[in-house]
């Protein structure tokens, strides 16, 4: 191990020497620090602002939402065996309470890459072409070369000469087996104590939107939700989250743009404690997993939440369904940094299949816990391995 470190350090040294010797013209650009240009780091950050004072319209909307919420709570109370008990272990499966669209219904639009092949395959013998076609279909779904080979090898061993229908059945079963593995796909929440769910991921995957949807779901279940706008980097990220807070009637703690995200998280934790919020949803800035300083910042955010022992129930990595093989690298790096508990797979309402989650589940054991299927508030559904596999294989 020492040898490896020495090699790298020396290699970089040689590189630096070479760079100077050859390219005095300077290929490099300026620093890539994340500070705003021309602004000194703000050491006297004003405290996170309290929730914005409500405009009359917002108040009216809120009143309406409260009415809806109360209605929802009444329905819930009317249902037998529903009253929430202090010792109720976890949040019940969401679909019990909310009438949510199922993954299957929402994937209706998804054109199955396999369907074409499957139709052609019917009535034909299983030959080399069959396997090539199956391989191509899996690759097109972003399953990846290694996982595709593993899946097909497993199926090849099992079918051994049976018809094409059976091959597809076996493949489907294999996909479900990879995804299942007794995974815990619930979002953990213990009533009566502070609960925090943190959302992490690269830029543009849909963290803020996912939080907005979850805030709505959890509020409808009678939880008092507080949003922590710890993405202080992206312009107007806090505004975006504030609009969601307004829509869902949740509270928000935010800092100024460029403020220290750690202080926002800290303020959110204290605000949750003093206001008696059950659930804090922490929105973090999108960051590429290759940026060491930003990953360090993320670890720091986690440590701040961890000061309230046992509060951090979920660290959710949000992955865009159109992501290719880099998704596995993302998952590995984020898991290493902040111990991810599960995946939220977003934008699955397009034609992207999100096949990379097979590799993520298989190699890292991280289950998909929810799926984003649109921009609307209700467009977040529970993940179901069978339905997911069907979306890959149905014709």
């Amino acid at each position, binding site marked *: 191990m020492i*040898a490896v470190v020495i*090699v790298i*350090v020396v290699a970089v040294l040689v590189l630096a020497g070479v760079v100077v010797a050859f390219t005095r013209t300077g290929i490099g650009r300026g620093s890539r620090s994340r500070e705003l240009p021309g602004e000194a780091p703000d050491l006297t950050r004003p405290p996170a602002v309290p929730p914005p004072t409500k405009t009359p319209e917002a108040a009216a909307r809120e009143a309406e939402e409260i009415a809806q919420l109360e209605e929802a709570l009444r329905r819930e109370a009317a249902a037998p065996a529903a009253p929430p008990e202090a010792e109720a272990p976890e949040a019940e499966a969401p679909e019990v309470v909310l009438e949510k669209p199922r993954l299957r219904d929402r994937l209706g639009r998804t054109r199955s890459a396999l369907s074409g092949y499957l139709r052609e395959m019917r009535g034909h013998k299983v030959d080399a072409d069959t396997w090539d076609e199956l391989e191509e279909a899996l690759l097109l779904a972003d399953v990846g070369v290694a996982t595709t080979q593993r899946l097909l090898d497993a199926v090849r061993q099992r079918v051994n000469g049976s018809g094409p229908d059976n091959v597809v059945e076996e493949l489907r079963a294999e996909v479900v087996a990879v995804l299942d593995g007794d995974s815990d796909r619930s979002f953990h929440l213990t009533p009566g104590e502070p609960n925090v769910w943190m959302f992490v991921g690269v*830029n543009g995957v849909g963290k803020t939107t996912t939080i907005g949807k979850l805030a709505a779901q959890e509020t409808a279940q009678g939880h008092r939700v507080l949003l922590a706008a710890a993405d202080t980097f992206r312009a107007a990220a806090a505004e975006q989250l504030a609009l969601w807070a307004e829509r869902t009637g949740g509270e928000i703690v935010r800092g100024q743009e460029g403020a220290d995200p750690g202080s926002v998280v800290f303020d959110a934790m204290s605000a949750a404690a003093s206001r008696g919020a059950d659930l804090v949803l922490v929105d973090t800035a999108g960051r590429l997993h290759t940026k*060491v300083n930003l990953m360090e910042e993320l670890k720091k955010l986690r440590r701040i939440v961890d000061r309230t022992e046992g509060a951090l129930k979920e660290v959710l990595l949000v992955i865009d369904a159109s992501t290719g093989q880099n998704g596995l*690298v993302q998952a590995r790096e984020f898991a290493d940094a902040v111990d991810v508990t599960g995946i939220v797979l977003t934008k699955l309402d397009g034609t992207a299949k999100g096949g*990379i989650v097979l590799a993520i589940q298989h190699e890292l054991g991280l289950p998909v816990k929810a799926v984003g299927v649109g921009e609307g508030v209700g467009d977040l559904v529970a993940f179901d391995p069978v339905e997911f596999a069907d979306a890959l294989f149905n014709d």
Partner: protein
Amino acid sequence: MFDALSDRFEGIFSRLRSRGRLSEADIDEIAREIRRALLEADVNVRVVKDFIARVKARAVDADLSKSLSPAQQVIKIVHEELVQTLGGEAGKITMSSKPPTVVMLAGLQGSGKTTAAAKLARLLKSQGLQPLLVGADLQRPAAVEQLRVLAQRVEVPFYSEASDPVSVALGAIEEAARLGRNVVIVDTAGRLQIDTELMDELRRIEQAVKPQNTLLVVDAMTGQEAVNVAEAFNQTVGLDGVVLTKIDGDARGGAALSVKEVVGKPILFAGTGENVEDFEPFYPDRMASRILGMGDMLTLIEKAEEAFDDEQKAKAERIVLEGEFTLEDFLEQMQQVKKMGSLQSLIGMMPGLPKEVRKAQIDDREIGKIEAIIRSMTLEERRNPTVVNGSRRTRIARGSGTNTSDVNQLLKQFKQVQQMMRGFGGGKKGKKGKRPRLSDLRALQQMEGMPELPSGGPRS
């Protein structure tokens, strides 16, 4: 993380050497390996097929058997073909003869349109143009606000209105005339290519303002889907170019190839970071190396440029040229290297490292251990490690919380490094030191425990 293509080729070509010429089967096997490499880089399956066919044709024509290094020869062909495919006039937008020139950015949600719009505005402004930024994404909450803030940051006027995207775009043209702006950059809402309603809206914006530059914004991390996206947007609004975003990550970016093949128009710009100035013309050769997993030397060099200040760079140069390298220097080097990122990520960018190094799971804490050992040495010991005897060893081990075998290992290996460094410099005074070459890194293989280095990719 990825086996470099060259490693896999080695096996194929070592058989070739014993036989003397490439058989049909050899070429097929090579093609399979290239295919795998491209697929791992997220190039679309169908695009890979066409690409392989082209490479195969070229490889058969090339007289590989006479080549000294057929493996490198083949990689060179693949690389050239990639550069050629990815190439095109980059870094420029098409100017309209009648101002204002209109640029419209379109793409999926989260691909980076809003950020790209602001970055493009900044770039054009620096080139002496007068851009106007237009927020026509009325879909995503606070998207308009985001662009407004970014516009302020890049000091470019901003226009939007709370109506509908078509009216916003039309209003922007009038606003540009009023303000005397000659480029209008329209940021549109992210949309799925199968959302007929929103795609229709995009077409209406396009028909209303007739952009000279309809640019598709694509995330470099996109997988197979890139082809569907490019096809649909191209059909709907007729694309003129592509902006590839988030290439500062470690995705191999095969989507670039897929999109280029489908759209047939150049990749104009690349987003290389989170700050507004991180935007540059697209470099096909860099992307080609990256897709092939041949490391990303240029990124590494950039990182080194950032981590080393001028004095440190001069020192690094002196060390390399003169070949004098002490533990003191080594300690200092490690501080710079730490600034460049995790060792694992640096390895990924460095071509030609032994497979064992590339595959090693490296714990950055290992640096701390080495640091501790060196810091527990006296200045004399750091400059001249030969004075370290048994009792000093024990003291150093105790002082650093390690054991004597760690200390021994470090000293032994450092000695080899010193010898190697002397080899670089030539070390003769008066005579101008031989200029170091990156291929000198091969000397690292002389280190104990280091296997023979495979031949790397083509060196430029």
